[in-house]
């Protein structure tokens, strides 16, 4: 394993993308399968004629974006962030304010959220990356708490009621345009964005950048001896994760027409972590699958009993103890055994 990592790091001029495709890791096949299933689902849901299922699935995908950002930090760099909802909520509020008060432009809202996420991520990263492990977790937790409380008390941001009246907009791609009010087209857009994010992040994680992160996760002390500044990489991935979370959050007000401080609360961060663990930490597609599964579960169980936290909590604990790599991880393990192919990560 370490030899493979070394070889990759010292030989960046390896095979190009084309031949990479033919040697796609099982996890990417899983992602493609998921995409196919999502499209099938969209067709079925659209046929039923009501937008509820499509919008529920869109919401699940938006929170999947948040979960992917948690996975970037936890699965690839070994950093547990308990406050990722801070960036998610930030992106949501920025997007809401842009759409409501500046211009009903999708691109502007996304750009503003990206910028906000990047800046906040930089600040948060500098503070949090001084420490590791549980201390890192506690600092991210505290940061999110303080920010959430501040937003909760700020009248200009709607205080505890949040902001409503975010308009439904139409998004233009040159000649084509789609309406956020239309559940099917917005679902497809978010699906495309999610897949694009997945593809981009997966590529990045397979590239030297991702390999360095894996090295940091394996043994941070050794990394400087290989010539890399661990702190810079950790900060970079933290900012990246913050941006991903902020972009995901920016989509929320487009879907639901409002934002509220609950989007920044620990509950949201905690749910993201649960999603990642149950879905499959370190796989990027695992969080997406996990998010869809848990959203569906909560919706269904929530209709029977108000104690769905117990159900989710039990599933979560079972995953931590028995299914260390989550559902997707367990699936991949089975597939690897069959095809003899695996990921070169420790």
């Amino acid at each position, binding site marked *: 394993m370490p030899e493979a990592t070394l070889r990759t790091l010292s030989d960046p001029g390896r095979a190009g993308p084309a031949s990479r495709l033919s040697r796609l890791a099982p996890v990417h096949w899983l992602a493609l399968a998921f995409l196919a299933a999502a499209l099938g689902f969209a067709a079925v849901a659209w046929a039923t004629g009501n937008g509820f299922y499509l919008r529920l699935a869109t919401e699940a995908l938006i929170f999947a974006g948040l979960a992917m950002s948690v996975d970037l930090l*936890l699965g690839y760099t*070994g950093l*547990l962030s308990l406050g990722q909802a801070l960036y998610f909520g930030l992106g949501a509020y920025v997007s809401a304010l842009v759409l409501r008060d500046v211009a009903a432009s999708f691109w502007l809202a996304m750009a503003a959220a990206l910028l906000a996420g990047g800046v906040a991520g930089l600040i948060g990263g500098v*503070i949090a990356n*001084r*420490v590791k*492990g*549980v*201390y890192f*977790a*506690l*600092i991210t937790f*505290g940061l999110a*708490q*303080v920010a959430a*409380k501040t937003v909760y*008390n700020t009248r200009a941001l709607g205080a505890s009621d949040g902001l409503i009246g975010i308009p439904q907009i139409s998004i233009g791609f040159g000649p084509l345009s789609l309406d956020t009010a239309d559940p099917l087209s917005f679902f497809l857009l978010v699906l495309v964005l999610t897949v694009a994010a997945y593809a981009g992040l997966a590529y990045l994680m397979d590239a030297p950048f991702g390999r360095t992160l894996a090295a940091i996760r394996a043994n941070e002390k050794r990394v400087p001896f290989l010539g890399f500044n661990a702190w810079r990489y950790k900060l970079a991935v933290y900012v990246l994760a913050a941006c991903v979370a902020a972009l995901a959050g920016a989509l929320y007000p487009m879907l639901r027409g409002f934002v509220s401080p609950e989007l920044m609360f620990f509950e949201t961060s*905690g749910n993201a*972590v*649960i999603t990642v*663990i149950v879905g499959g930490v370190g796989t990027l597609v695992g969080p997406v699958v996990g998010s869809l599964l848990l959203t569906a579960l909560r919706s269904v169980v929530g209709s029977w009993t108000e*104690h769905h*936290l*117990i159900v*989710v*909590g*039990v599933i*979560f*604990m079972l995953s*931590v*103890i028995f299914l*260390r790599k989550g559902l997707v991880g367990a699936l991949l393990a089975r597939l690897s055994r069959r095809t003899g192919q695996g990921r070169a990560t420790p």
Partner: protein
Amino acid sequence: MADLIDYLQFVLAPQALNGLSLGVAVVLMALGLTIIFGLLDVINMAHGEFYAMGAFLALTLAGLGIGFWALLVLVPLLMLPIGWLAERWLIARVFHSRDRHILTLLLTFGLGMIMEDLLKLVYGPNTQRPENPIEGGTEILGMFLPNYRLFLIGFGLALIAAVWLVVFRTGLGAMVRAAAFDKDMASSLGVPVRRVYAGTFAFGVALAGLSGVLLAPIYSVFPTMGRDFILMAFTVVIVGGMGSIQGAVIAGLLLTQVQALSSLYISPVWSDPLVFGIMVLVLMVRPQGLFGRLGHA
């Protein structure tokens, strides 16, 4: 001059005394947390829920007619086996993994979630409160302090002293410290390490439960009460030094004084950010806290 004395007597001193009773409560919570971390390297995110469990147990038992003083002994005793089992059945399973820190954090987080919902399921979401066992108050130097708070301060300090005695002056405590320092060596010297682990976790949990019993009459009882203390308790543990009893006591008393006295001068809404800010500062400047770790302190 008279103004200064007046200020000291009527403003600062009562505030400091109030901070002391809160401080003792926080220290009791933080003690269990820091002992568990010091020995087991486990962040017990469910600590607040064990505190809540203690308070609810006290309510149930009181409903059966058991008196407050008996509860002070009975509830921790009942929580010991619960803590023991939690360690054996849950924590021990992830203990030997490389990602132990994160896994136990996640595990106890999940446990806390389940416990909170279970408490809601069993007891309902309404607030409840046991009767205050010691009514009335005393005048001390012109300050009025409720008798129960005085009892709390006294009992709490005695309890802290007892814990310190057990850990640092008994054979049992020596075993615990040895296992924290070097578990393999301790094991080869005949210390039953696995039992020490389970016992220590149980002890920490029992302390949390006892805090629940003590604070229920003044802070009341409801399923989400575990979240009251969590930020403060973790801050105390970090500032004092993960695993240091001395650190937990000093940091606990100090931080609560800071909070109590600062609320005289700055808006109370800044007290949580202030506490958090201190935690961040300590983590950035001196991550091992004031006093380091249990085995090594």
